[in-house]
């Protein structure tokens, strides 16, 4: 059963939050395969912790193994955690445009690692200062090196997008 949506108007939770409450274990699309590992956290000098906690709970409920680095996390720490854990997914959250500056350095930093080619890169939250336009923002962040970009999208929709992406990726790999 899908967790109920939660309407929260608090500033630091507005984006990723309409997400999950209840957090019952829901059937994973990856039943039977090894548990997918996700490294997550809030990028940069950003202490918006509520949505980060809810994401942790939602990901766990969906059957992922979650490594939550918490708030104030720098890009190198995300990549380093992905190496140490052997993560499949890197899911970065951000609020009010903090990710913009850091996002530009993703390709440069990721290129230093030899074992992260298969890593699925996802970012979500409020990715600009103010409201912004997803039509501008999404391509910009994809160009920075992210596979999935969720600007002002609720948490469950974002995680559904992630599952669809992973399914597609698995199919491609099995056909190859």
């Amino acid at each position, binding site marked *: 059963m899908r967790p109920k949506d939660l309407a929260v108007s608090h500033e630091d939770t507005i984006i990723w939050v309409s997400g999950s409450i209840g957090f019952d274990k829901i059937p994973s699309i990856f039943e039977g395969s090894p548990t997918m590992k996700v490294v997550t956290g809030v990028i940069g000098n950003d202490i918006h912790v509520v949505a980060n906690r809810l994401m942790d709970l939602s990901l766990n409920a969906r059957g992922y*193994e979650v490594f939550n680095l918490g708030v104030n996390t720098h890009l190198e720490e995300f990549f380093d955690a992905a190496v*140490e*854990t052997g993560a499949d997914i890197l899911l970065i959250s951000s609020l009010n445009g903090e990710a913009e500056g850091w996002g530009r350095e993703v390709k440069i930093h990721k290129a230093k690692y*030899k074992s992260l080619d298969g890593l699925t890169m996802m970012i979500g939250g409020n990715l600009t200062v103010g409201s912004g336009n997803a039509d501008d923002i999404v391509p910009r962040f994809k160009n920075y090196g992210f596979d999935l970009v969720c600007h002002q999208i609720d948490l469950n929709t974002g995680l559904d997008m992630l599952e669809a992406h992973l399914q597609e990726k698995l199919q491609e790999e099995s056909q190859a």
Partner: protein
Amino acid sequence: MSGSSETNSANDKLLIDIGSTYFKVSTSGSIEQHFRDFNKRILDDLLHKSGETVQRFNAKDIHICSSANGGLSTLIIGLTQSYSLKYATNIAYNSGINVIDSLIFQNIEDYSIPSDLIDVVIIVGGIDSNSGLFDDRLNQYLAKLNYSNAVYVGNAQDGAKMASTVKRLVVLPNIIDDRLHIVEKHLKDYLTNLYQQDIEGKEDIKHLYEITDNQIFSTPFVVNKSLPLINASFSVTDPFILLDIGGATTDVHYSKDLVTDNIVTEQGHDRIVFKKLGVYKSRQSLIFTAEQNEYAYELLMHLKVTENIYEEHSDKATKILMQLAIFLVLCKMSHYRPAYVTLKLLAMNSIVFTGGITKVLNTEDVEDVVAFFYRKILNSDHKPRTVLDTNYDIWTLGAKDHAICQ
């Protein structure tokens, strides 16, 4: 000594600290300090200068620590800077081991092979549910390396495989848990024991077992034990740092509150040892470090001397070198010349000095240098409270506490 008719009461202990330059002998009523005679064995020198005191005690009541062994060296091979290398480096420093280099495994072919003998190689990386992280390149690197011990503290599955391929490899539990947190105990115990064996193995130190039944410990280990008790003897406000500037090395003990790193460990105080920063045995290396620091020249001007003081061997020169040592070690702990750890020095409330430096400098001399450092390097008038441990009370406190525990 054992069997003496004039032995002291059961609670009285004799505490001895063997430094590179001085040795100290402390009883409940007095403390003696003697400059070492380097032409004699330590035991002979000790018995010559403090023989009467030593003979009043039973071997079981004599407790000795030494900082004269110089310490062990380690090379760390890990997967990432933020986790495996950072955690292993932290544990190594806290165990009194000098990290000579750390390298990231994925680029292992790019690193040159150190020519010196490495006392212990630490290999670390990955959580236990991750595996296959190290390959044959590690064996090839280690085959070219000259080392005495190797310890593996990474993911469990790779450890089991590596134990059969790497010579002299000790496999211990992972220092990274499944939440990416640090687990210190096993590696710290292993390194502390190795350090201990090194002290005991030193020819000069071995002879000291003729007068004591107790294990000989390293001085930084004993001093670190005293820090939670320091308020009993001094008006020190947390957070503080303690500088033990001696003849050969400088030990820095600091409150964990001063560190920006978010490693969660159990103890409240960490320590770091600068192996070649001292005013007697490491004099030349101290001068070299000073020559590389552009502010050192300004400090000399401030102290109204010139660089010619480096060539002098006088009381005045020793005093100036001591002041330089304070400045240089503060630089190493600041953002200006970072060496392993950068402390939030503007948040520091007290700075405590112990070791040979307190025999040469007075409070005014020390405060002058500390104020110069804050003004020049941190652009601040911040003035932490300066405390001089002129009677080695901090070491006595730690040694007594340790002796009671033994």
